[in-house]
């Protein structure tokens, strides 16, 4: 009898706890939504065409929210990620680090292969498959990129790029702490690649230990951060608004990936070559002042 009561009591506690959790979850979702809404940048009025043009170019509707996330990211970077990446760079010799990069790239081949096909790039899909076969065998499990020396250079495709090729425009820039710069479209693409095409996710689906996923994520992060550290440090030192400079660099690099490395189109202002000899005669007089 007593045992029954305690079980009943336990059930009641559990139900209450679940309700509380649901309430807390709803509250959290509400808070997150509110902060995103509050973090929205408002579109400048039509009376300010320059401001509107900058707003459109930056494509950063969540700028206040993103800047806050960027602050969190920079703090985490200084305390955790940077020291780990820095130590990795200092301790592990360059050839070994290159081996890790090659191994991870080879392991992630299904992502590029699937997206090559989804973009209708059959020839590039063939290169991707060829690289995988050569590097997995002659390249000792992918540690060495021997395929690149045989005329099959590395390229990377993801579902965000596929969506771009399909005509989906990036809705807005998004800064995610630890992951870094991305966007709504590209973030969604990342999730599709992770759950759909990533062999490590497939491995952990099959009741294998979850720590493999975490170790893999850690390795990817350290490999990425240690590889881009110099470039981001340089950008930080040469800029007065690092957030804005990084956003621009990310968006340009992303555009290059979507174009499959083709040279960037000429930037035009008022339909003219902005670098033309007399692109703006009103400023010619000042151009001699140095």
């Amino acid at each position, binding site marked *: 009898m007593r045992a029954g009561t305690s079980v009943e009591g336990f059930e009641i506690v559990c139900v209450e706890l679940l309700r509380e959790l649901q309430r807390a979850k709803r509250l959290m979702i509400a808070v997150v939504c509110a902060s995103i809404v509050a973090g929205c940048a408002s579109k400048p009025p039509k009376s300010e065409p320059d401001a509107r043009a900058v707003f459109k170019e930056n494509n950063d509707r969540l700028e206040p929210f993103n800047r806050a996330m960027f602050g969190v990211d920079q703090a985490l970077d200084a305390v955790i990620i940077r020291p780990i990446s820095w130590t990795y760079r200092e301790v592990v010799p360059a050839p070994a680090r290159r081996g890790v990069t090659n191994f991870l790239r080879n392991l992630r081949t299904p992502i590029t292969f699937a997206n090559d096909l989804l973009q209708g790039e059959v020839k590039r899909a063939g290169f991707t498959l060829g690289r995988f076969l050569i590097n997995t065998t002659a390249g000792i499990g992918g540690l060495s990129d021997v395929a690149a020396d045989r005329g099959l250079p590395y390229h990377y495709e993801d579902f965000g790029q596929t969506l771009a090729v399909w005509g989906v425009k990036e809705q807005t820039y998004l800064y995610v702490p630890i992951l870094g710069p991305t966007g709504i479209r590209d973030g969604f693409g990342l999730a599709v690649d992770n759950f759909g095409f990533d062999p490590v996710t497939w491995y952990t689906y099959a009741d294998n230990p979850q720590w493999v996923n975490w170790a893999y994520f850690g390795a990817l992060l350290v490999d990425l951060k240690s590889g881009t550290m110099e470039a981001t440090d340089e950008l930080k030192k040469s800029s007065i608004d690092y957030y804005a400079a990084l956003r621009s660099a990310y968006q340009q690099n992303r555009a290059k990936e979507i174009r499959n490395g083709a040279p960037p189109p000429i930037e035009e202002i008022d339909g003219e070559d902005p*670098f033309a000899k007399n692109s703006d005669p009103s400023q010619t007089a000042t151009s001699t002042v140095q």
Partner: protein
Amino acid sequence: MIHRRSAIGTAAAALFVGRAMAQTGDTPTVAIQKFAAAGITDILSAKITQREKTTRFRGLFKTFFDIPAIGRFVLGRFARATSADDMAKFQALFEDVVVYTWTRRFGEYDGQTLSVRDSVPDGDEGAIVNSAIVGKDGQSLAVAWRTRKRATGHQIVDVIIEGVSMAITYRNEYATVIQQNGGMSGLLAQLKKQVDELAAKLDS
């Protein structure tokens, strides 16, 4: 202080440039090759002080780059509404920013070479010269140079590293600063602060 230093630097650089080259190059590719060769021989590999390297680089930069055109592009739509006085101030500060941020890293030079791949037409009498900076370990970095034909030969108007354009990055960044931090005067004040900090580091 900066301006006096710039004046001395410019005079020394003029001598240096006068000795090294009068023209940038008859073709975009030649201009890039001459720029790289002069940079490696006379600055990066030279056994001279950092200050002297900065002076020499400023001269080389002014010869091979169309800095006023880059400055105008970087200000973009804001250039038209900028007074001639502010434009001159911006051009001088922008030149200092680029010179100081580039020279800061000259000490890390470790025998890298520039290998020019090809050149494709671009814009008004211009080209994009595709090249790679190749390190001793065989690792390479893709660098594209956007050039335009000027009276002194082909001059560089942009450097694009791994798809990221220097001019566009500065333009987007400065547009944000102008929009959010007090307009053109806000930008000039922040650039001045940055240049002073970079110059102080050069002395230390």
